[in-house]
């Protein structure tokens, strides 16, 4: 059924806190089976969007439906379709993991054998067996996140909404949680927020970039990078020129968008980052690097490194949020 394919349908959503427009005329959809990453700087409105979708907050404008149910008319029904993990995985620290899971199961109307079955599945899926009888207060951040995740998937929801599921975790825990999300994402639709770009590239089928409450970009990671695709970067390390001199010379090349030259800690070496302009052709980077090489030979400078870099999600993000001059 077409409607059920659109698990999240947000149209012109607005949420204000006094004078602040935390969510400003936002429109996007999440289809069944996708793993969608919500990216944005801190304060962009990611958490707010999730709180509105889970009906924790009431929108000030626009509409949204989750699995076909409107968030205005039937919040309780909406929540039945969603498994939500808030930021920092808040949990009742005086309870044991088993008690907490049983409580959440009861709150979802899961009883008896069905509850046991779901709890066992969630514990196994999230790797909680070793800590099942432990007090939540004694668990590390990583395990607390897993308990939160287990609570979110307990009732087998269509949609998982996770708010910064990897925040505060160490690199090993991050990899584990990402694997978990990937696993769960095979059978469920996941909508999670993050401000770590690499996460989106690693896990998501689609990324939505938010900045200051407004939609900045929406598409598959490859698409988003391709939209800057013609814009590649040439990076070179040279000894000889001063940074100002190099900047002026390279800035004069064709198709160059932005040049930045930094002095490296080693004496006399400089690193030059050249971004092609948005109107440049695909070969522009090649041509520029050749020109740079010839310039070096001409001026008798020493070149240590010359490469053409494809722009990463990070660059896509910085561009979409209007911070491109930072590098």
């Amino acid at each position, binding site marked *: 059924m077409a409607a059920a394919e659109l698990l999240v349908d947000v149209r012109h959503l607005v949420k204000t806190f006094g004078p602040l427009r935390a969510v400003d005329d936002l429109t996007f959809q999440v289809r069944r089976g996708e793993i969608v990453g919500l990216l944005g700087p801190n304060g962009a409105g990611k958490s707010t969007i999730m709180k509105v979708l889970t009906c924790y907050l009431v929108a000030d404008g626009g509409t949204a439906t989750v699995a076909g149910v409107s968030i205005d008319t039937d919040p309780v*029904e909406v929540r039945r379709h969603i498994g939500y993990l808030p930021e920092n995985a*808040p949990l009742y620290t*005086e309870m044991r993991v088993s008690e907490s899971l049983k409580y959440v199961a009861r709150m979802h109307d899961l009883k008896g054998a069905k509850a046991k079955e779901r709890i066992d599945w969630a514990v196994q899926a999230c790797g909680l067996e070793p800590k099942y009888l432990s007090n939540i207060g004694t668990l590390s951040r990583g395990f607390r996140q897993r308990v939160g995740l287990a609570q979110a998937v307990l009732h087998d929801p269509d949609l998982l909404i996770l708010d910064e599921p990897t925040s505060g975790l160490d690199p090993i825990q991050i990899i584990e949680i990402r694997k978990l999300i990937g696993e769960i994402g095979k059978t469920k639709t996941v909508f999670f927020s993050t401000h770590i770009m690499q996460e989106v590239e690693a896990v998501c089928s689609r990324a939505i970039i938010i900045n200051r409450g407004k939609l900045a970009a929406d598409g598959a990671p490859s698409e988003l990078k391709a939209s800057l695709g013609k814009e590649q970067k040439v990076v070179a390390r040279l000894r000889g020129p001063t940074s100002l001199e190099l900047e002026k010379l390279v800035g004069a090349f064709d198709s160059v968008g932005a040049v930045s030259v930094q002095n490296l800690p080693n004496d006399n070496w400089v690193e030059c980052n050249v971004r092609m302009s948005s109107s440049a052709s695909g070969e522009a980077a090649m041509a520029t690097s050749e020109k740079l090489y010839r310039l070096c030979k001409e001026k008798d400078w020493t070149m240590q490194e010359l490469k053409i870099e494809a722009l990463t999600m990070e660059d896509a993000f910085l561009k979409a949020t209007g911070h491109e001059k930072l590098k």
Partner: protein
Amino acid sequence: MIETKSDLWTAPIIRVYRILKDPTVRSVMRRELGAYFNTPIGYVIIAFFLLLTCWFYVDDLFLRGTAEMRQFFDLMPLFMLIFIPAISMRLWAEERKLGTMEVLLTLPVKAWQVVMGKYLAGLVFIVIMLALSLHLPLALASKSILAGNPDLGQVAAGYAGAIVLGMIYLAIGAFASALTADQIVAFIIGISFSFVFFLMGQQGVLAWVRDWSPFAADLVERFGVGYHFQSITRGVLDTRDIIYAFTVAGLFLFLNVLVVERRR
């Protein structure tokens, strides 16, 4: 729908029954009750409450030489004023502090179910607390201990009054807890609001109001907890006292739901 005169009574009773039977309300209640006893807080409150009230009661018991619990129940309005906000302060403030309010209220539950669940947990806790003072009337009555002859009807009425008092203060305290993330602030606000109701039965305040208008003084007196508490402990089950209790408790529970919803 209310169709006959008897419906006026059965309708609210059915409502209360349905609330008590609601599975979500029961789940929340069980969890909260567990929380009181999984941490020291429950034991500490009960211990101190019993320590203080029993001490003050027994202190004069032998001097008086009469086998009655009246002096114990006389202590209730003041002691409950302090201890019940201590019981209710963690109900909502802790959820806000821990951030679990977000988890709780994004489960497929209605706000009133959670409010009632927490309230009932507090009420059960109060009943347990009072039940642990039953050793006093037992000692009074038992032939092998004090061999007094207490009027057990009055004792029962006294406990009934104490529970009703608890119902009211608890509703106020729970509302106060919902207003803040800080348990101490919840405690203080709870005591303050309850104190207003307490003051309305105090002679000092009433005399002052009486100077202004004797009619107003009578009115104010009936709004205070003291008046109704006295009435119940005298052993007469006046429907006006029941209505008072349910109205005040109901009002604050309603406000509680509003505050919980207002965060949205």
